[in-house]
């Protein structure tokens, strides 16, 4: 066991810090929030940097990086509160790489590395991710999906459906006939999302099997946990800086024991989340991920980001509450991430079932 980042990861991180400070400053993030769409120019920068192919095999046009390498970039995107389809696209690429046949991998992965974007169309109804009603008989996808993030702006949708009674994933071009946005949904984190109707939409390709759908749920949950952690870490870092400069009663407020003790407890939870998230991603890389642990990490990071961001607002006071200041980015994005692929309540149920049944 050695938890030090590799040299490559250190390089990726410092590179991403520089690039995002320059290319994704907070005012540009506010523009993305206002427009409800990702920033095309920023996306092409990320593509040029090779980030979209980071975890794709070299034989398919990527760089053959690990999930932990990918995590470095995702964490930096979260720290800058960037709204982009990076995570759903990376998730789709991972699932294609792990479960697609060679023809699909050879076709799709180079396109993703070069900038094609993918939305994940999994949940139905009130967020149901199992026993899906959407069908994909004879390559025609029909059904209604909800919480489809970046549904309008992405090139492809990865749609969980059943065909001949078996689960699988259909790759449907967003422009295909029969794909329509039924309703845009305004979500707490301002990530664009929609209810999408598929009415006999032609699938380009199909990934067979429940294993692929389950992997989508599990990896999706793990990446959402990573995002929750990253937002909590950023909010904490901002607050640790703030309490050292904010002076009240003639002293920096960070010198008050009440403030110190609260921050010590928050930092403890964030530290634990950091370990748990990265350990989990390492297990995915080794093929040793465990469903109960995925739920544990989801619940811990969800509880952590909610508590940390809310307490950071308490320590900031009024300044943290106004939208000219950047703290709220992490409060709302972090909360949204913690609910993605199911909230802490569902995760706790999974943990309880694993313990007691």
């Amino acid at each position, binding site marked *: 066991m050695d938890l030090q980042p590799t040299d490559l990861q250190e390089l990726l991180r410092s590179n991403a810090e520089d690039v995002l400070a320059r290319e994704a400053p907070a005012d540009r993030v506010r523009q993305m929030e206002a427009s409800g769409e990702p920033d095309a120019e920023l996306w092409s920068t990320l593509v040029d940097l090779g980030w979209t192919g980071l975890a794709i095999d070299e034989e398919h046009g990527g760089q053959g990086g690990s999930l932990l390498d990918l995590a470095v970039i995702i964490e930096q995107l979260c720290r800058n509160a960037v709204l982009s389809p990076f995570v759903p696209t990376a998730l789709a690429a991972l699932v294609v790489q792990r479960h697609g046949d060679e023809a699909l991998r050879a076709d799709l992965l180079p396109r993703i590395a070069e900038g094609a974007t993918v939305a994940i169309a999994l949940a139905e109804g009130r967020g149901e991710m199992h026993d899906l009603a959407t069908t994909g008989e004879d390559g025609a996808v029909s059904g209604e999906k909800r919480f489809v993030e970046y549904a309008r702006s992405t090139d492809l949708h990865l749609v969980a459906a059943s065909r001949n009674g078996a689960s699988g994933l259909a790759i449907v071009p967003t422009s295909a006939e029969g794909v329509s946005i039924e309703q845009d949904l305004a979500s707490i984190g301002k990530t664009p999302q929609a209810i999408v109707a598929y009415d006999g939409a032609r699938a380009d390709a199909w990934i067979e099997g429940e294993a692929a759908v389950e992997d989508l749920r599990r990896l999706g949950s793990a990446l959402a946990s990573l995002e929750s952690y990253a937002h909590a870490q950023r909010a904490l870092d901002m607050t640790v800086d703030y309490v050292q400069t904010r002076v009240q009663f003639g002293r920096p407020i960070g010198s008050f024991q009440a403030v110190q003790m609260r921050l*010590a407890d928050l*930092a403890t939870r964030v530290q634990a989340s950091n370990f*748990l998230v990265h350990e989990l991603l390492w297990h995915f890389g080794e093929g040793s991920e465990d469903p109960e642990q995925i739920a544990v990490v989801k619940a811990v990071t969800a509880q952590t980001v909610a508590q940390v961001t809310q307490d950071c607002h308490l320590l900031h006071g009024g300044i943290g509450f106004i939208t000219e200041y950047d703290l709220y980015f992490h409060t709302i994005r972090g909360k949204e991430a913690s609910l993605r692929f199911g909230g802490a309540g569902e995760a706790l149920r999974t*943990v309880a079932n694993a313990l007691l049944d």
Partner: protein
Amino acid sequence: MRVPIGHRERAVRMHYGWTDEQLQFRDDLRAFIAEHRTEELLAELDEYHDTHEYGPAMRRFRTGLDEAGFSTMAWPTEYGGQNKGAFYLFILKEELEYWGMPYDALSVLSVGTTIMRFGSESQKREWLPKIQTGEMNFAIGYTEPNAGTDLASLQTRAVRDGDEWVINGQKIYTSAAHNASHLFMAARTDPEAPKHRGISVFVFPLDTPGITVRPLWTMGGGRTNETFYEDVRIPADSIVGEENRGWYTIMNALDLERVTIGPYAPIKRVLDLMVEHVREERPELRDDPIVRTKLAETKLDYEIARALATTNAAIIDGGHTPTMEASMTKVWSTDMKERVSNLAMDLLGWEGALHVSNGEIAPARGDFEGRWRLSPSTRFGGGTNDVQRQIIATRGLSLPRG
């Protein structure tokens, strides 16, 4: 600064798995524990909580651990260890604490490694082999009635008289002073110097004339002591490290203790005992959504403790000194130990209050109520948790001191 245990060559980074050798060590250790964890040993352990006296089975266990090479595995080879690194120690502590097995971490880790680092050549040659076998074991004489968390204000005096030191004063919470062979004591050798710079550390036998040990019985069931020192004469070479530099020696001892700080494995033990009890004996609780939620939350709390303890051990294993990571582990795991045993009792109701002496009728051998009574000592001991929080804030997060 050289860390005497835990350093090894760097292997693969960002790797969260154990090596085959570490897994083998864990298996060997588990097999050893399974073989020695007899009814006789368990009965002695139940008794031990009330008496703090080692029984014959506990002694055999301790000797067996040493003979198998387990207890000093992390020591450098030059002192009879195997230089295996901090993770072996971590695994050792994890397994022993999970099963509640006796291990004198205080002597082997805190005192032993401090002597390795600060002791004279003759002290190392004479004492370390005896510490390894358990022949030489320690009580710690730091705390005084007016020097607790503010340890540096201690007043017990050591005065040089020819080739002897003469000690006068009083210590409190000198746990194990009634059955340890030696005392590891901090005393004031220069009353004129600023308080951190007039302290020295001594090692001497507890049967030296002039020492009085009086029991203080604790609500945890066990015993600690107050100890009195009246013209206690010890040889000049009983001093460990430099004269008047003792503060830095004992701070180092506290640092090394941090290798295995935070009893996180017992949280898992309580959870496992609870789950087993509920599944096998209380089906109505097993199906109760409140119980299910609480136990799932306990699992999360344990995972947080495991994450913090492992992070801390990984830093030490990499040859670095943890600062806030050790304190985070200590605070979380000891706070959680209290909460988890409290939860177990709350869910059980009447039965949760039953002491081990009741036999079969006490759930989990009275484990929950016993642990809950003991938990204050782990929360304030080894640096009280609120001071640890301040260490996290000031050393770890670099917040200004108040």
